[in-house]
């Protein structure tokens, strides 16, 4: 039952390509790597977004970009009110700037 591998000497090149430490250790990410599938752009308000998952869901449902929200939570997190405020502001602006097409 004990199957053994070939000795290392015998096996050069047969068990996968050589991998040097240089490739194993990080190559810096290319600067152009702008994530195609990433839903949010960099924060306009600044810094990473802090929000608990239901707030993220709420923001998604209300079409709010969390990175644009002014966070008022105790530890800098976005609160439910913050999202709602942002959503109502956005709809106000939308109403002003882009009136709906009449049918």
């Amino acid at each position, binding site marked *: *039952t*004990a*199957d*053994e*591998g070939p*000795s*290392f000497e015998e*096996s*050069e090149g*047969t*068990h*996968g*390509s*050589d*991998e*040097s*430490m*240089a*490739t*194993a*250790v*990080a*190559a*810096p*990410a*290319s600067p152009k*790597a*702008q*994530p*195609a*599938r*990433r*839903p*949010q752009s960099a924060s306009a308000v600044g810094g*990473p*977004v*802090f*929000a*608990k*998952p239901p707030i*993220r869901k709420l923001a998604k449902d209300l079409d709010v970009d969390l990175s644009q929200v002014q966070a008022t939570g105790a*530890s800098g*997190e976005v609160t439910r009110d913050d999202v709602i405020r942002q959503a109502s502001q956005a709809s106000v602006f939308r109403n002003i700037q882009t009136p709906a097409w009449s049918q």
Partner: protein
Amino acid sequence: MSIENMPLGKALNAGMRRALAEDPKVLLMGEDIGTLGGVFRVTEGLQAEFGKKRVFDTPLAESGIVGTAIGLAMRGYRPVCEIQFNGFVYPAFNQITSQLAKLTNRHEGDMQFPVVIRIPYGGHIGAVEHHQESNEAYFLHTAGLRVVSPSNPHDAYWMMQEAIASNDPVIFFEPMSRYWPKGDVDTSAANIPLHASRVVRAGTDVTVIGHGAMVSVLLQAADAAAAEGTSLEVIDLRTLSPIDYGPILESAAKTGRVVIAQEAPGNVSLASELAATITEKMFYSLEAPVLRVTGFDTPFPPAKLEAIYLPDADRVLDAVDRVLSY
């Protein structure tokens, strides 16, 4: 700097050779490790070099191997035990769990137990039952053990020496499928300590975490993702217990999206712990739940099915897509 290019198996051999040479108390013991040099030749040449009192074959009994290693440690030796294959460590489970892991505590620190247990593990070698398991979870849940696994020759060389130098017991998981690929080993200096995780590829969109053979799968996935414009940050855990959360949390804070990959079945596993802890510590930063890509919750399948069972780059990329779609 003194760089040598060698396979991981050879790096382990070189690490053990150096430990044997530097400390006369270091012993190697196990089944077929002497004349044969181990079924994977990882101990090749060491009995010839250091003699039968330093490197020796034992009777075929894993509980006996670990139990006598404990006694040797009490006597002041530093035994390095080879378990021939992952699925054969269970006969030693009592000695490891109720004895080795607890003895330092039982002695209130008066005695130390510098025993290393080497376990070749993981899939991709097409072997028969019991030969390809990733059973680290059992040892991670056991307080009193250190658990590590190198993913590349340089780490293998240094982590082996650091494990042997540890005064605590270390379960040393060797990724079998990585025994052969070569890499550069800087024999003049280790670059980071034993219990440190490491970013092996920097990225911005999703953090992907793994250990052992999974690291090369993750690097492959990162290449593929990059081609599609997604930047993965790849973290090699290196040490599975205790986990070095620093680089992990820093990365999660940056990306907000984490995928963990392992060959072991998912239920109550390393991936569960990482997902739970990362979520607990980084709750406000996560854009998506931490997703786990794991072996299935079944016994390891026959060789012809292992490709379905083992997480590959595609399964990792699928999880990456899922965390990005939140």
